[in-house]
């Protein structure tokens, strides 16, 4: 079978038992997720749970369905079979920044903030704070197509964080980040965990798996504890 068939409910070195909000059940519970594109089976009966205050890394080889699973969890892609149950507001950061090329950062914030009922002033204030934390050049007014890849990605991430979502679905959110911003990103992950957010992050950075609570490997059928990436990968 070439399709990814993983279960994410096993325990890693940190199964989240003592994490904030752990006793209230998962914020994301996907079960039996099946997805194929034409004749190609991508996901085959994947189960996944993410609890409040838990950071779960989704790893696996290229094309094994990580981004597809994240999109299914976000509700943007429909699975062929299986179901996803979620509680709480979702913040979704896609791999390719879903930005509007000719809007600047403040305009993005005003537009995305309106979805939560925030006024323009509230959305821009809250968003600028997030952007400053990510070392985004706030206030330069450049439209998103004129930003560097890493800077666009920071805006992409800040938009996912706007509105204080309880569930964070992040698809390689640090792509293009410089070293400082990359380290800063994982510090933020720790803070989100402490704040009780459920974080599901697609990553290829196996060196950072010690900073997550659980690893779900879509290439292999059993979950692997942090710090135990497959040899040769």
């Amino acid at each position, binding site marked *: 079978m070439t399709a990814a068939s993983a279960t994410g409910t096993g325990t890693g070195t940190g199964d989240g038992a003592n994490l904030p909000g752990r006793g209230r059940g998962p914020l994301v519970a996907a079960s039996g997720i099946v997805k194929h594109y034409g004749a190609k089976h991508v996901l085959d009966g994947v189960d996944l749970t993410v609890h409040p205050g838990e950071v779960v890394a989704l790893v696996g080889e290229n094309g094994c369905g990580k981004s597809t699973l994240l999109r299914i969890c976000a*509700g*943007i892609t429909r699975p062929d079979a299986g179901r996803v149950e*979620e509680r*709480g507001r979702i*913040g979704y950061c896609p791999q*390719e920044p879903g930005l*509007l090329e000719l809007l600047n950062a403040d305009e993005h914030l005003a*537009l995305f903030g309106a*979805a939560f009922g925030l006024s*323009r002033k509230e959305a821009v204030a809250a968003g600028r704070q997030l952007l400053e934390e990510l070392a985004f050049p706030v206030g330069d007014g450049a439209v998103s197509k004129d930003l560097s890849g890493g800077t666009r990605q920071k805006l992409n991430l800040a938009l996912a964080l706007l509105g204080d979502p309880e569930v964070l679905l992040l698809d390689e959110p640090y792509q293009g980040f410089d070293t400082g911003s990359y380290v800063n990103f994982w510090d933020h992950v720790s803070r989100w965990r402490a704040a009780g957010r459920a974080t599901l992050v697609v990553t290829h950075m196996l060196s950072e798996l010690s900073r997550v609570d659980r690893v779900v490997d879509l290439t292999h059928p059993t979950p692997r504890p942090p710090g135990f990436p497959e040899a040769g990968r």
Partner: protein
Amino acid sequence: MTGARAFLQRTLIAAEMQGRQLLRRRLALAILVALPVALYLAMLSQSKESAIEFGALGMSWSVACAALFAVLAAREAEPRLVLIGFRPAELMLGRFLLLLGGGTAFAALVGVAMTLASAPVSVAALFGSCLLVPPIAVSLGLAVAAILPHDLEGTLVIIGLVGIQLALSGGAWVNGILPMNGPIQLAYLAGGFPADPVGLMLVHSLVYVVALLAIAAAGWSLRVRVRRGRPAAPVQ
């Protein structure tokens, strides 16, 4: 915030952001304006009366393509906006209102220019022709974008639909079943040519606007739909 007020706020900000994006595409805007003007001027040397039809159909191309590309520019962002709380109808309505407003202002200016240059038999019919173009063309662009959300394919369909009408003579029955028949017939009337009854043209145009908007709304809602719809209540 009440539901109606939230709907209005989100629709207006969607319209505003659509307008900001459109205004920043200066070269594209210049070409969109130049296309109907060029068509009109090219025909003006042959026939002042027939040039009105060319001007109206040129506007149809411009406005429909503006609507198509407005949708395509947002195709990555809009599922995210729906995921966090926008309704597809708010995004679609905001875009429709902005493009309709901009298209109507443009059509009015073209109408004034054509009135001065063509000396129409009926000024009312000429302005009727111009002002009927934006609602139909915006709806057409939105519908094509919902069905064929790809640059080349969508543009070719619009070129084909409007181009067929440009190539046909007035009495051709095929004109009667294509979207721009209303503006064309009014353009004939403005030029002193025989035309279908005005009431019939208006009904034809209205039916097309409603049908195209229904296709656009249904198609785009399907494309940007999310499983959850609205965000669930925050965890207590």
